[in-house]
């Protein structure tokens, strides 16, 4: 399943970066997006596939927190 929750890029080194999800950090590839540290992205199978505005991202994160799915992350293929 796609991970619908946006994360924030906190480190970037070329096409590789680190995305933060409420404290959980994962390595991501940034080849498919024009994004930099501070931007919010949606990640799929280890790749950022889309960028979101901060406003939309924070709202999404809050909504997912409310429905308690923030922990329900899995990297499947879609």
């Amino acid at each position, binding site marked *: *399943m*796609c991970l619908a929750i946006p994360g924030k890029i906190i480190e970037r080194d070329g096409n590789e970066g680190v995305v933060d999800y409420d404290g959980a950090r994962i390595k991501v590839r940034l080849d*498919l997006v024009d994004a930099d540290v501070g931007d919010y992205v*949606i990640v799929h*199978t*280890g790749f950022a*596939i889309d960028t979101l505005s901060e406003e*939309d991202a924070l709202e999404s994160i809050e*909504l997912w927190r409310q*429905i308690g799915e923030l922990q329900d992350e899995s990297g499947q293929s879609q």
Partner: protein
Amino acid sequence: MNQANRNDPRYIRLLAGKIAEQARSLGPLTLMHVCGTHEHTIVSSGLRSLLPDTIRLVSGPGCPVCITPKEDIEAMIHLARSGLTVTTFGDMMRIPSDSGSLADAKAEGADVRIVYGIANALSIAQEERREVVHFGIGFETTVPTSSVALASQPDNFSIYSVHRTIPEALDFLLSNSLAVDGFVDPGHVSTIIGSNAYAFISERYGVPQVVAGFEPGDVLLAVLMLLDQRVEGRAEVENEYVRAVRPGGNVKARALIDETFRQVDAKWRALPVIPRSGLAIAPKYREWDAVHRHRDVLESFSYTPREEDSACRCKDILLGACSPQDCPLFRRVCTPDAPVGPCMVSVEGTCYISYKYG
């Protein structure tokens, strides 16, 4: 409606009320989504119980693991048994074929590794200097990740592509007179291909579509937007997931896909060959196409289709024609620990989702 209230119970109730209101002026309708994540949201939030009896919201062939043909799983098992290192997403491991599963091959000593993404597979190839074949499954969301791998022109690495595309599948379903009155289009596939990619379907068949996000409020709003279109006699592609999906999609990713793949007719498990629904690796990247690179090994592989003899109804489930509860094996015989069909193995499979969250 303030977007920040998208999952507020009051907003959900309001949407359900509006849906019921619109449904009253319409006959019975079947709406289909094609995304495991949508099915997860629908089941875990009990959305179906909020819809009027006349509105069926069914799940179509949106689980990439479930629709990967047995033939290709067997080809991967053959490659693994021949001594190559095979990398795959976790839920592909236990999908049954006529010659067992990749997990069986691993148990027998073949080198099959689970990866979270293709970047992990590339790292294995780089670090261990062995020949790695990655099982490239998935729809347009996963395809560009394979494109990145191909474009990096690795040394000892290739992809066995069973990538499939969604708009061609929707086109096929409708051209075979599947009775669908509206599609909830998949959010993340659409971030890549864009909402415009579905326009020809609405034009050709007069069927409304709405690209939707994954929160309960997103899915319900998409249903309401579909009903609004039906009431007003419109059939177009609307975008509910504007915060992530642009009409033209992810331009960078699409360019990479065009560069590295080409469209081919392709078989879907439980479905026939769907014209132009598969993505084969472009001739220019042939060296990293497992079918070409390991052609000697694959020469000794043959596949004989076998009649399905079990009562598994995955085929009907993938067409939205029945639900897991209609399958006599569901829960009694078929469980995630002892799955009979692919729909119970994958976390994106309708049977699995029903079992876990229903």
